[in-house]
């Protein structure tokens, strides 16, 4: 007997309701908000009037916003490859190891991910403070990890610390799924050690690596908590990441419409970046 057509929709409905309420509706509302600008006459509260694409035009001329995008691109270009290489190396090492220690290291590497990013920011904020930092005390220097020139990379360090273990678990799981007959066949062909990694493990890891990369790109574009927690400790530029900038535009300057505009542009930018990346990597062969 064929089930009535409504059944799949019934099962889907909880998801669809939540998706509509918490994803589609806010996005539509943000889009609507972004079309308004503030108008003032003399003193008193501003009026919100329809401004068409004024906010979008402003965003493309807003050097603070463009700098924030540039910042995050720089950040991604350095931090993501570093983190993925680290995570891959750790996953391969775990995969190659045996016994009780394996479980210990798996947990140990994963542990930073279980710490909320706000707490991680506070923790590292202390480790970075100029006079109290153990790094400075051991080396006898007075390096300012929170100086505005290096703070982006100090944040990159926090992010790497947090996410390497998480990505490692994903990659490790993929390695565990490689059928053992492939290894046997390779060994019969005389492959061992590095060759096994080079010709069996890494190629089979590629889909998972791509997944991890895409998630990292999306995650990086959204970085907010770490710089935000570190802000009170020193001077962290308003526009160190696009998210901190648009947050301040909304909550400090009270310009919710312009913040909505920036949020939409950031989403489009992230989407484009992911799409370009996928396109670029797929050209090399099948995934």
């Amino acid at each position, binding site marked *: 007997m064929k089930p009535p057509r409504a059944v799949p929709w019934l099962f889907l409905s909880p998801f669809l309701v939540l998706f509509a309420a918490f994803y589609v509706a806010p996005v539509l509302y943000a889009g609507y908000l972004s079309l308004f600008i503030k108008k003032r006459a003399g003193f008193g509260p501003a009026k919100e009037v329809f401004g068409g694409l004024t906010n979008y035009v402003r965003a493309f001329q807003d050097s603070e916003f463009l700098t924030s995008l540039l910042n995050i691109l720089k950040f991604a270009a350095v931090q993501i490859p570093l983190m993925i290489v680290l995570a891959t190396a750790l996953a391969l090492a775990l995969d190659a190891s045996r016994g009780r220690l394996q479980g210990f290291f798996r947990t140990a590497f994963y542990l930073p991910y279980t710490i909320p990013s706000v707490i991680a920011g506070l923790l590292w904020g202390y480790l970075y403070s100029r006079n109290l930092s153990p790094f400075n005390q051991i080396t006898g220097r007075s390096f300012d990890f929170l100086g505005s*020139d290096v703070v982006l990379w100090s944040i990159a360090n926090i992010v790497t610390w947090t996410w390497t273990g998480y990505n490692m678990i994903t990659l490790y799981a993929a390695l565990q799924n490689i059928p053992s007959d492939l290894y046997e066949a390779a060994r019969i062909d005389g492959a061992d050690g590095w060759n096994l990694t080079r010709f069996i493990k890494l190629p089979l890891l590629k889909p998972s690596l791509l997944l991890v990369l895409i998630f990292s790109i999306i995650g990086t574009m959204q970085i907010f908590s770490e710089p935000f927690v570190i802000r009170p400790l020193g001077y962290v530029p308003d526009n160190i990441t696009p998210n901190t900038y648009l947050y301040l535009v909304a909550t400090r300057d009270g310009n919710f419409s312009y913040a909505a505009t920036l949020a939409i542009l950031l989403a489009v930018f992230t989407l484009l970046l992911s799409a370009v990346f996928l396109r670029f990597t797929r050209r090399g062969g099948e995934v």
Partner: protein
Amino acid sequence: MNKVLMTALTALLAGSALAADPAFPKAPSGKVTLEVWSWVPGLDKTVQAFEKAYPNIDVKVTNLGGGPQTYTKLLTTLKAGTGAPDVAQIEYGFLPAFVDTGGLTDLSTLGANNYKKYFVPWTWGQVSPDGKAVFAIPQDTGPFAMVYNDAALKKYGVAVPRTWAEYEKAAATVYTKSGGQVKLGNFYATFAPWFMALAWADGAQFFKRDGDRWVQTLNNPTAKKVLNYWYGMIKKGHVGTLNAFTSDYWNAVGAGKVLSNMEAAWGPGGYAGSLKNKTAGQWRAANLPQWTAGSTVRSGNWGGSSNVVTAQSKNKEAAMLFSLWLNLSQSAITNNWVNGGLFPASDAGLDLAVLKDKTKNPSKFFGGQDISAVYARASRGVNVNFQWAPWFPFANDNFNKQMDLMLKGRLTPDQALDAWQRETLAEAKKQGYDVR
């Protein structure tokens, strides 16, 4: 019958306890619940006394931690048109930004101007910029004075500086005698209001209303004088640039590496609380150093806050009554000082006995000195006409950017202030203000 008697008795008791208080407006009848957002520690205890005096009013206090967190939440609820509290605490500098949202009640419509006479004049100027509309009731203030480690100053053979020229000399002496290890003072490079208070003390104006327009002069001559003065000492290493309220700062002060600072009246409580036993009893407060030696002390103000009644409040009369009571009744002012270190904005509050209690912090931390006398003098020396602009939150953050560039040597102090003026003016114009 019993209940009526009890109520009458409580009212009578409360009445006698508040004998010296001004006559507050009549409480509205019927059951009222007020929601209050504040960051004052121990406010819930203060509120109990209020609920006793006004049994039909329930007060729910939410402490959001103060600063940006509170403002973000308040701004969002005002924008949303729902969810705002009846009463909220806002610092003077940020008040115009909230006035601008249209989300605050003009308390003059409820008779707030009758209470103007009870407050230190400059504080009323902060909540009633045009002398008519009243957007908040002043709560606490942050007049500026100098706190210093007396024992350490004696150790370096330095007298307490009374002028900025003396301060500069003392800073050099401390630096030399300590082999560059110890600094007399510290420049808070990420707190614009700290710097502005120093310039305020010398008569600087940063924002001014001009009819229907605004005038902004962040790079005014006084500001340039003050910044150049500090930059000179920073460059020589005679004063430090640690960030305010960080563990780094408290660590350096506790270790005797920073010997003095210009602090608002709410600051000493922070020293007592953060340093605990380290250097306790060694500290003193003195007048802010002056540009010209003389008998009148001029001072500026850093921080301090007020209580607003939101437009969303359904019980505006009760909300204003609470705000007045919280800042004018002796019992509340006493509690606010003892539990929260709030230096009163009311005239009578400045003479309150508890402010002079030498056995309790912060006076205890300050070797039993009556530091409130120093701060009361400072409060009366604050320029009345100082104004803030609605776009101050932006200026506040932009200051940090310019100071960072200055400390890196990429901008001179004059250039930094010019850039601060230029970038903030551009932003204010983008926000739609008629400003020059």
